């Protein structure tokens, strides 16, 4: 019987190309990978239809943390969020789907460039030309955006208003879409509570930008509980706001599709939308990656590696391993070196040169595919010097100094009474200083750097330059 489904081929395709990695990156269990399609019984007398559910597009929001370097595939990075949106429209046109839902955060906050809007308008026009309507609710980021009101959107694109919940009815499909936009950025009100009752006999969809009862790393907006949503009697809840694909519940189906394109190293793994098929009484959904740049953390075990070349070879292998899962996408990779290795001191002391080496390796693996975002040195030295043994030697003195500074922030502050540092701290804009410990915020911030500094100095002092 299952062979008679028109979606059977797609089902196969999904089985073939969705490897376990997706599951891991997306936080799914293995079982779900093989049964990426879930069913729910609905009415029996209706025709089959499909729609796309996306959210958190954050159009034209730049990718963060990518330091441009020689050989970096700069062009492939440009306009990643736009390319992802194009992918979404392409998918809608190719499938084809009957309508598209966007559950908030189409734009990125205070973004005022009208071009962003124009780009979205062009994409909407493509859908319009193919007769595919689109329904959007504004999320917290959109709420702050002023330009969207002037945007020349096609008639088939419906941006729902704030203030009260509205219902869009698609007569042909007997589908009712209920939703309400954010009127202001921080909406602490429970919007779901005000959503209307379902249209009897129709397929009811709730379109909502919410953090539900709270999600880690996400601000609390339009809070509501899952039970509350279930009680509404809708068939599908198309949620937005959480940047990670999550099937919150299956009866009714409550889904966060995650954002369309990861924007920094904390948004790793595949990003995309959910393709939903409704046939008769069954609802089936599939996650479809739409991203053009994929963020990943590449952990390299340097345990016991003694030779630079060996370590680089390990890095190369690990970098190459990721190639297949990215399927030709640009990969923004943070290489993280871990484990106990005698190379630790060199790595710490020559961090910059190591970053350059790893980047050049990435260039060898595939010059167009990998952008090494950062090389994080998380290795540990093999032998802790015994300070007592070296007590009367200069190196012992050095280590004793470091230990004392570790223990006493006041002394650290005194030692670091440095004009250049104060000057730099004053000149670095807050946006640069945020999000990373640069050691500019007082002795407590300096303290974690001491271990690195010790390694750096010991390495510099013990490495003999070749005598002339």
């Amino acid at each position: 019987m299952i062979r008679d489904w028109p979606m059977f081929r797609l089902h196969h395709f999904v089985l073939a190309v969705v490897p376990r990695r997706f599951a891991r990156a997306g936080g799914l269990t293995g079982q779900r990978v093989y049964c990426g399609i879930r069913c729910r019984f609905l009415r029996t007398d209706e025709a089959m239809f499909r729609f796309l559910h996306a959210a958190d597009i954050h159009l034209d929001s730049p990718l963060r943390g990518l330091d441009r370097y020689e050989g970096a595939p700069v062009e492939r990075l440009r306009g990643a969020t736009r390319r992802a949106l194009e992918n979404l429209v392409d998918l809608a046109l190719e499938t084809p789907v009957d309508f598209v839902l966007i559950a908030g955060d189409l734009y990125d906050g205070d973004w005022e460039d009208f071009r962003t809007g124009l780009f979205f308008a062009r994409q909407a026009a493509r859908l319009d030309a193919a007769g595919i309507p689109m329904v959007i609710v504004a999320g917290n980021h959109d709420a702050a955006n002023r330009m969207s009101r002037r945007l020349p959107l096609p008639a088939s694109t419906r941006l729902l208003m704030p203030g009260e919940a509205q219902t869009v009815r698609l007569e042909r499909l007997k589908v009712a879409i209920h939703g309400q936009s954010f009127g202001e950025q921080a909406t602490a009100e429970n919007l779901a509570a005000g959503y209307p009752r379902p249209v009897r006999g129709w397929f009811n969809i709730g379109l909502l930008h919410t953090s539900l009862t709270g999600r880690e790393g996400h601000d609390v907006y339009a809070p509501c509980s899952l039970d509350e949503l279930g009680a509404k009697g809708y068939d599908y809840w198309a949620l937005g706001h959480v940047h990670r694909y999550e099937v919150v519940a299956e009866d009714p189906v409550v889904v966060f599709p995650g954002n369309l394109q990861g924007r920094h190293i904390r948004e790793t793994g595949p990003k995309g939308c959910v393709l939903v098929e409704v046939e008769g009484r069954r609802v089936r959904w599939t996650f479809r990656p739409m991203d053009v740049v994929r963020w990943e953390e590449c952990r390299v075990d340097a345990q016991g590696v003694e030779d630079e070349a060996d370590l680089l070879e390990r890095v190369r292998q690990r970098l190459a391993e990721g190639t297949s899962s990215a399927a030709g996408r640009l990969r923004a990779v943070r290489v993280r070196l871990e484990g106990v290795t005698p190379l630790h001191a060199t790595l710490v002391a020559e961090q910059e040169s190591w970053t350059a080496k790893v980047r050049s390796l990435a260039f060898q693996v595939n010059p167009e595919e990998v952008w090494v975002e950062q090389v994080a040195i998380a290795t540990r030295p093999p032998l802790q010097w015994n300070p007592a043994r070296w007590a009367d030697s200069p190196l012992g003195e050095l280590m004793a100094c470091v230990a004392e500074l570790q223990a006493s922030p006041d002394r650290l502050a005194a030692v670091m009474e440095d004009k250049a540092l104060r000057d730099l701290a004053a000149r670095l804009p807050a946006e640069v200083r945020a999000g990373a410990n640069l050691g500019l915020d007082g002795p407590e911030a300096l303290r974690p750097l001491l271990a690195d500094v010790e390694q750096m100095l010991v390495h510099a002092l013990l490495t003999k330059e070749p005598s002339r």
Partner: protein
Amino acid sequence: MKVVRLDLRAFGPFTNVVLDFSAGNLGLHLVYGANEAGKTSALRALENTLFGIPQQSPDDFRHPYSALRVGATLQLADGRQIAFLRRKAARKTLLASDNATELAEDALAPFLGSVDLEGFRTMFGLGHAELVHGGEKIVQGSGQVGQVLFAAGAGIADLRTVQQRLEELCDALYTPRGRNPRINEALRKLEDARRRLRQGHLLAEQWAEHRQALERAQKELADLDHKRSTLQVERNRLERLRQALGPAARRKDLTEKLAALEQVIVLPADFAERRRKAATQLEVAKKEAADAQRELQRIQRELAAVKVPEPLLNEAAAIDELVDRLGAHRKAQRDLPRLKEKRQADAQRLAEVLATLRPDLSPDLAHTLFLTLGQQDRIQQLAQEYARLSTRLEAVRKGAADRQREAQEAEEALASLPAVPNLADLQAALRAAQGDGDLEARLREHERQRTKLAQEVERALGRLGLWSGPWEALEMLPVPSDETLERFDRDLAEAQQAVARLEQQRQEKQEQCDRTRQELEAMALEGAVPTEGELDEARAHRDAGWQLIRAAWLGSATDPDRWAQYVGRPAAPEDLAEAFTRSVAKADELADRLRREADRVAKRAHLLAQSTATEHELRLMEERYQAASDRLGQLQQAWAAAWQPAGIEPLSPPEMRAWMGRYRELLRQIQSMREQQSQADVLRQRIEHHRRSLAQRLAELGEISPLASEGLAALLHRSQMLLEELQNRQQQRRRLESDIQRARRQFEAAQQEIQLAEESRRRWEQEWSMALEPLGLAGQTLPETALTALQSINELRECRRRMAELDERIEGIGADACQFARDVEELCQRVAPDLAGQPVEAAVEALKARLQNARADDRRRNELLEEQKRWSQKGEKAEQAIARHCAALELLCREAGCSSPDELPQAEQASAEKLRLRDELTGVEQRLAELSGTGAIEGLLAEVAAVDVDALPGRIERLDQELRGVEQRRDELQQTIGRHQRALEEMDAGPSAAQTAEEIEEIRARLQADAAQFVRLRLALAVLRQAIERYREKHEGSVLRRAGELFARLTCGSFQGLVVDADDQGQSVLKGVRAGGTERVELAAMSEGTADQLFLALRLASLEHYLEGKEPWPLVLDDVLIGFDNQRAAAALAVLAELSDRTQVIFFTHHAHLVSLAEQTVPASPQRLFVHRLGDGV
């Protein structure tokens, strides 16, 4: 830790080589290996043994990687030992010394402590290059004490460079005022990008305005397009009509003309051509036929004129032969007279020669003189031999004369040389004198030594003190014996100690006494302490008063004196009462106090008792002290008395012991001075002996006897010169005598040769006269004359031969001429009888001319016959062509319907005209069809007929104007549309703010990385500075003091130490102190070698300091002393040997002289130095 043994089992060039470092306590181990002996390999082996063989080891050239084995035995200070082998592998590299059992990787850990490879190299390894490098860096640096100490302590030559590199890295990242450092640049770019972002936001209003304007313009454009196309349709129609007017009129005209030409036959296009061709060819054929006829007639005439003589032509070959022979005949006739003249000349020459040689002979008999070849050769041979014989004879005679002269000269020379006396004695004397060497120099040396010693003795005498007098007296000085001195020393010391001790005790007692007294006084000051005595006294006083009062009261006699005594003054009765009352009160009070202050009373009593006892002891003590002092005095007097005989007032015994040392030293010096003196005397005697002996010999040889001032050396020199001169003369005489003998022997030999030569000459003369006989010459004829005669005879022979030849040729010429004449005559008879009887030459010439003519006539006739045949053929061809062309013209006339060929051109013209008119009509109709647009011309013709021809141009012009207006407006609109479209495109596609935002993110990422790195670098610099400063604070004193000592030793006292001094900026810097202590040398001013020594001193001092109280660790040195001169190298080796008491020192070197230097320098006991030689067992 100590390396007991290094086992080079299979490593580098070594196979089973063992370096045993077990000897001694720790020891200075010198490992010597010449180049190639494997010193460097051994050094590396030590390192690899302790810390593992690296992956890319170069030491596999003899043993493969898998077989590499190197091992060691290590020993800790507490005696624990480990013996192990190291192999090359990724893990499990440690084996027990059986080369099989695996040891745990950390088995070495207790032995290595926390020293790893880097630590070992830095702290405990020092190579020559590093030493030099370290020295250089120390000298180049500012000499700041902290840096120097830190660098030397850690073995980091490049501390300054490390700091500089960190600073450079910092500066490359950020400087507060820079533009180019990376952070500065990124900040600038960030600011720039943010500015662009602010500017770049596109406003929705602008976009909408453009959009509306664009739409308006597009609509207007569409309207205009429609209007333009309507106008163009009308204009095109009118234009067509205008163009059709001309062709329509022409069409009518042509139709009419063609109707008139209906009867004309239309000829084919090539008709005229064919007709012209036929006529022309007919003309040509006719002309050719006439030419042929004319030519044939001419040839006939010419043939008749030609006649050919046949007989002459038949004899042509014979005539040609005679013509050829005529040349030769003429030449022979010309030569004949010359030949006859030559023969005459030869005959004459023959006669002349013969006349000179043998006038008696007639020319016809000349041949009798001709000799055979053998005879001639003999004469020539003998003539040559004559010359040789004469030369030889002459040479031999000259030789004999020379030898005779030489002998005479030598004899004369010998006679002039005086005879030589016997030289043996002189030689013997000289040899004896020279055999003793340079006696005078030795004498001078001894005297110099003696003088020096005498001066030293004088100085020492001055320094001796306590005694004065000549040094001779010193030897006799009766000083007390050492034992006496010892005894006095002991006794006096004891006595002095006793005095001192007693003095101290006495003082202690005194102090005790004083203390007791002070306490008593203090008690007294606190208030008098009542005593039993005072109470008794007071009571007695009271009782006395009572007695007086009682006496007075009872009326007994009063004694005013006793009253006054009692009261203290002359007293009235009241006074007595008063005094009594007081005395009662006093006695009571005393009794009360005694009871109340019983403690104080007791204490006072105790103190008083103690005071008495102490004073007694003090007195005893003083007595004993006095006794000890007396004993000391006696001893001192005895001490002085002991020195009395020497006339010396002695100081204390220890001082006198030192004095005795000086005195003995002085005696020793006097002794050696005396020895020098006696040796000098001996030498002087020897010199005198030799002088005498030589003088005697010289006198014997007649030389002047030596002057008293002439030293032995001068005398020796003179004797030597004389001896050499006499020996020379002797040799010269011997040479002359041998010359004379040789000359005489040679003279005799020459005489014999002369005889032999003369004999040969005589034999030659006989042979000569025999050889000349056939010539008829006398035997005495000289060889030259005989040879000339031989030449003349040869000439005669030549003349005769030439004459015979010439005769033969003259005869031949005559015979040839006769034959020729006969042949000519015969031929003439046959072909030209008219020529018979003519001279031969003329006849032949005539025949030749006639033959030529006959041949020319014959050729001409043949040519004419050929030409005749050609022309007759041409004539026939022309006739045929004429017939053919006439027939063709006949056919053409029939085709054109003409009666004769002359009418043909007219018919052709008419046909052509008709064709032209037809073509033009077709063209006009075609044009009309085009203009009509539909192809049907009738409609067009009707329209043309209907149109007003004159109004047409005006209507077209109006339409054109209207169209131009429309076009202009369209252009404007299109521009407007373009402008708006561009604006919209630019707005849409221009450099998007999103891109700028991405750029900002990139810059931000870069800035974060760079800023973090910058902070780390600054922190590193600060920490390093602090560590340097703290190390200096803690270790400056001890390390610098020790380094100063070592530096003084290593520079062999050129420097006396190191000092911390302030430089111009007030920084503490290190300076060297020159010997003498006044001059301070900055490090920058030190020479390279000294810098090396300074660095070594600092390193060793730091190491010693570091090792204090720690487990020793071997110091491994690699040829560090190359740059040291021998003296400083020796000092360094001594220092290292001492260091080896603290820790093991292993010194690798390539230099054998260091080994021998060490063996000389390092004291044998206690044994510290151990030398190992590489290369013997390899």
